[in-house]
């Protein structure tokens, strides 16, 4: 019987490492609420603006460190930032 944990183990490593597939998130919403531009968020988190664009569009899976940094800047927990 398939459940949540089994579903995760069935996903191929290639699919997990696909840099062009990301998770849904609330980055844009929270960023707009805090009145921060993409450029500023990129500068504060130490990445290029394009990476923030891809992150917001759910086209990139960030590293744990970047997810943590962005969550800290946007003053939320990682769990509240991404839809797992």
């Amino acid at each position: 019987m398939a459940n949540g944990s089994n579903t995760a183990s069935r996903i191929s490593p290639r699919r997990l490492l696909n840099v062009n597939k990301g998770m849904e998130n609330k980055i844009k919403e929270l960023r707009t609420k805090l009145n921060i531009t993409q450029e500023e968020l990129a500068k504060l988190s130490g990445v290029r603006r394009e990476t923030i664009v891809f992150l917001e569009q759910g086209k990139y899976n960030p590293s744990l460190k970047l997810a943590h940094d962005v969550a800290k800047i946007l003053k939320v927990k990682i769990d509240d930032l991404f839809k797992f």
Partner: protein
Amino acid sequence: MLTNSNINPMTLKQYQVLRMAVAVILGVIFSQTIIFQNYLVPIVAVTVAMLVLILAKKKVKGVIADERDYAVGGKAALLTIQIYSWIAVVIMFFLYTKRELYPSYEAIAITLAYSTCLLMIGYGLIFRYYNKIAFLDKKMIYTVLFIVAFVAVVIFGLRLLSGEDDWICSNGQWIKHGQPDFPAPTVECK
């Protein structure tokens, strides 16, 4: 603190333009030196270009490449290696089958075969390093061993590529060494 990097800071755009200009200049230098058969100038040019780009990189205010660039770069590099290997193998077999018609094809086929092998061995070693060795306690010892193994593979590969059968320039004349399949070089032997 006033450092060299913040006297004249460079924007990312300026750095990218400079990098492109350096690549174009290097291309021109390489093509000209091949025509004039001068092999010292390209080595000097590449060294100077690397130094210029390293200095320019230090002056850039902002992020040049981040984790996403490295992830994409890794994926692109792996795909490039796979595509190159397949194309090289196909061309190698084609040239090898035509070696009776054109003897020089054999040398090109062997060069392609060994360059592909070297590329894949190099990739395997570097992958192994970043996958396991980089995280070990005795990293230094393994790093030295890794470099020695890599250099040995390169030297062995070059030795295989150079071959026993060749033409050697001696006293202004091309002398046969072994049984080369190809004719003597047409360039003047000095």
